[in-house]
């Protein structure tokens, strides 16, 4: 086994442990946590047994296993960026909602104070 493989596998194990800790402390939902666990074990498996990607690549009509890994990685990354962007927009919209409601209730309170 090459040093590179060893380093990546150790990193994947570390990442999986971190995910597990996050699930236990409820810092990460179970579904999302399961996704990340499968992801890191998958990366570890592909790095430890590179020939498996060639087998899969041949079945899917891609020439080399390494190409398949790159294609899948790019698709997964794009999807994650998309999800993050949506999440960020949702967060922004929630912040706006809070800020607007605070401004309106403050104005209402000031108006009531003036009346009394």
């Amino acid at each position, binding site marked *: 086994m090459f040093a590179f493989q060893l380093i990546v596998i150790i990193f994947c194990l570390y990442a999986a442990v971190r995910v597990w800790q996050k699930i236990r402390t409820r810092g990460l939902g179970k579904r999302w946590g399961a996704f990340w666990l499968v992801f890191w074990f998958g990366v570890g498996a592909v790095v430890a047994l590179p020939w498996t990607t060639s087998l899969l690549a041949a079945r899917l009509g891609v020439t080399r296993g390494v190409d398949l890994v790159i294609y899948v990685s790019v698709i997964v990354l794009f999807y994650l960026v998309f999800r993050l*962007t949506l999440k960020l927009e949702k967060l922004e919209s929630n912040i706006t909602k809070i800020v607007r409601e*605070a401004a309106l209730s403050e104005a209402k309170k000031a108006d009531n104070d003036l009346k009394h």
Partner: protein
Amino acid sequence: MKLAVVIPAYNEEKMIAEVVKEVRTVTPHVFVVDDGSADGTGAAAALAGATVLRHALNRGQGAALRTGIEAAARSGAEVIVTYDADGQMSAADIPALVAPVEAGFCDVALGSRFIVDHGPWTMDNGRMPFVRRLTLKAALLFTRITTGMKLTDTHNGLRAFSREAAAKLDLRCDRMAHASEILEEISRLGLRYREIPVTIKYTDYSLAKGQKLSGAFRIIRDLLMSSWMK
């Protein structure tokens, strides 16, 4: 008829008092939304006689307009006018803008810089930068495609809504895309609209505060995001 004017303001300490005083010559009901300004915008507006609502954080002109429109509606306003804080607009245009809404000829009156009075694609004092004119032309085309509305000016902040029309709008764009979103909503809801000629004064101050070309890309991005989020 109770007329309220909503002015979203961000770091407009220098101009806001003058703007509020001018608008108050038309109506005493002026709502300034201080959108998280770092200067004394809110205090200056309050001193000038406006009702001030304060956003603790800067959330953009679209969000500030929504807050102001809601506050105006709660106060019992029957016609709600949106107005800019940078001194570009003229309060003298408000009565003509409000008249068709008040008379029930339309639900929304949209101010336009480009109708008859000054001829198409000209402006009151010849100071509109070429890039801005080009961007506005592109916006007209975009609006025509997305809403089917044949307008002469799509990004004019001077508008008048009947209370009922304002209540129906489902606005979500916090930042500059709200101008296009308002038109999309008018089209979606089938509201009756009219364009009314208004004057926009291009001063060094307003030009420095105005939108840049790069803003157009952000507007398109925000519009796409808001349509996905709906």
